[in-house]
């Protein structure tokens, strides 16, 4: 897997898909069972200190030192990063409306998340690795965080890898989306291409007792579309989800209706899906 250089890369997948593990491996917090990794040209060796000097990391788990004040916690996070980073982090935190003189124990979950984010965004590094940076944030704060990330990538030329299990939450900031499931990469594409496909999804519901292999073969024979999934729905229908090659569904639909190899569909459904829906539709993975 090659991520970057530059831009915001969204690492997506349901809980347990391996997003956090991958990010932790990249910064040396978890040792890989096999294989190698490098960040910004630095090979992962030892405990990954060399990589953590070149990249910032914001963990997904939010356990902070509650007895510290927010500004002291920023200093603690940024030990070894220089005074400029601390000043910049304070600026970001203030921009996000965090009370820097308050103790962390008085912070809500979302405020803690923003504090960690401010610390990860401040240092002058080329790579930022952020585990669920928008988790627990309200929509306005989420938007602010994503805008800051996009601006950072655009203006400072950084590579930002962020994870999320909510595609709809982060797609606006991402230049690239990488989907993980069961520890494997199942897709890697741009939001634009995914969005284009989302506008060309056709669902055909066949009777539940239809022959699956016959339907698969017939749809393949028709051409003009690729079969993404074939599954039994809750109401017992055998649903084929197809991504059409063109924006106009009518030619394919007409061919499908005329085909003698296909049973007559019980229902048609065509239209633009949300990114979260297409994720489910195309990859069959819940949680995004």
């Amino acid at each position: 897997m090659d991520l970057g250089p530059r831009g915001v890369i969204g690492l997506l997948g349901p809980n347990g898909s391996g997003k956090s593990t991958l990010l932790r491996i990249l910064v040396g917090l978890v040792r890989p069972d096999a294989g190698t990794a490098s960040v910004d040209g630095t090979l992962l060796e030892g405990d990954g200190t060399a990589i953590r000097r070149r990249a910032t990391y914001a963990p997904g788990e939010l356990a902070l030192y509650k007895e510290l004040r927010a500004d002291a916690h920023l200093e603690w996070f940024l030990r070894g990063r220089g005074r400029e980073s601390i000043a910049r982090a304070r600026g970001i935190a203030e921009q996000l409306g965090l009370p820097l003189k308050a103790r962390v124990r008085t912070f809500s979950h979302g405020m803690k998340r923003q504090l960690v984010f401010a610390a990860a965004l401040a240092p002058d590094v080329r790579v930022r690795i952020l585990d669920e940076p928008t988790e627990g944030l309200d929509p306005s704060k989420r938007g602010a965080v994503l805008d800051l990330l996009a601006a950072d990538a655009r203006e400072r030329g950084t590579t930002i890898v962020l994870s999320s299990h909510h595609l709809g939450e982060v797609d606006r900031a991402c230049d690239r989306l990488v989907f993980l499931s069961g520890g494997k990469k199942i897709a890697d594409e741009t939001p634009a291409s995914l969005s284009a496909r989302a506008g060309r999804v056709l669902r055909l519901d066949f009777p539940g007792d239809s022959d699956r292999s016959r339907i698969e073969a017939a749809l393949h024979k028709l051409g003009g579309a690729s079969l993404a999934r074939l599954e039994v729905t809750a109401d017992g229908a055998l649903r084929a989800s197809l991504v059409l090659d063109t924006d106009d569904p009518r030619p394919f639909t007409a061919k499908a209706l005329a085909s003698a190899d296909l049973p007559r569909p019980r229902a048609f459904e065509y239209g633009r899906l949300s990114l979260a829906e297409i994720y489910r539709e195309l990859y069959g993975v819940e949680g995004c």
Partner: protein
Amino acid sequence: MVREYRFQLYGMLAYFVVLEILLAAAILFWPDFEGNLDALRSMAPLEALKGIVDQIGEAGVSAYVNGQHFFKGCNTVGMLAAVIFAMGAVAGEAQRGTLEIWLARPLSRRRILLERFVAGAIAVTLPVFVSSATVPWLLDRVHEEMEFRDLMLGSLHQSIFLIAIYGITFFFSCVSSRPVVIAFVMLMFTIFEFALYMIQDVTHISIFRLADIDVFANIGATHGLDLRIVIPMLAVIAMTLWGSLAAFARRVP
């Protein structure tokens, strides 16, 4: 960095105050103690305690100070401090869930661990030296005196003993996520060892023999450390530190 070690700093101050109060009270009580040695000997319930009273009767105030300050004060309060400072060093972070952010900074694990080990070791040993340094002044209140150099050598020996205990606890902290369990294990171990010390037939196998009145009396007599005791204790410290570094290097947050 001071904020990071606030617990050790405040803990060290509290530990010093307790140690100093015990020391001051003991030294100011010395004239009464000296005048009632025979009665105290007859009241001692165990042979081991009678032996200690005899030693004080023969050697005078230096044995009394060694017994009260090093054997009683430092061995009890110091061991408690050693366990408290070490038990949460890594296990506490794991239990609180802060291990990940602790390790996420651009600092090597070796450095992070050594910093914490040294901070705790200083917190365990500095009060021993500082309180020992006040002994001449306190003894002056009761018109007695003791060699400052012997007190510092005694403090050094005591500190090595306490760091060995600290190192063992620290190692447990590196491999565990439950500081309370570590504290309980160390408490049971200490009670067991002290019980051994009090039984004449097996007293020689107790770890408290490594830091009892005999040892400090020997330091006073030779004006030097007993390397037969110090070197094995240093070896224990080195092994526990090495073990801690190895365990911490593999630790997953």
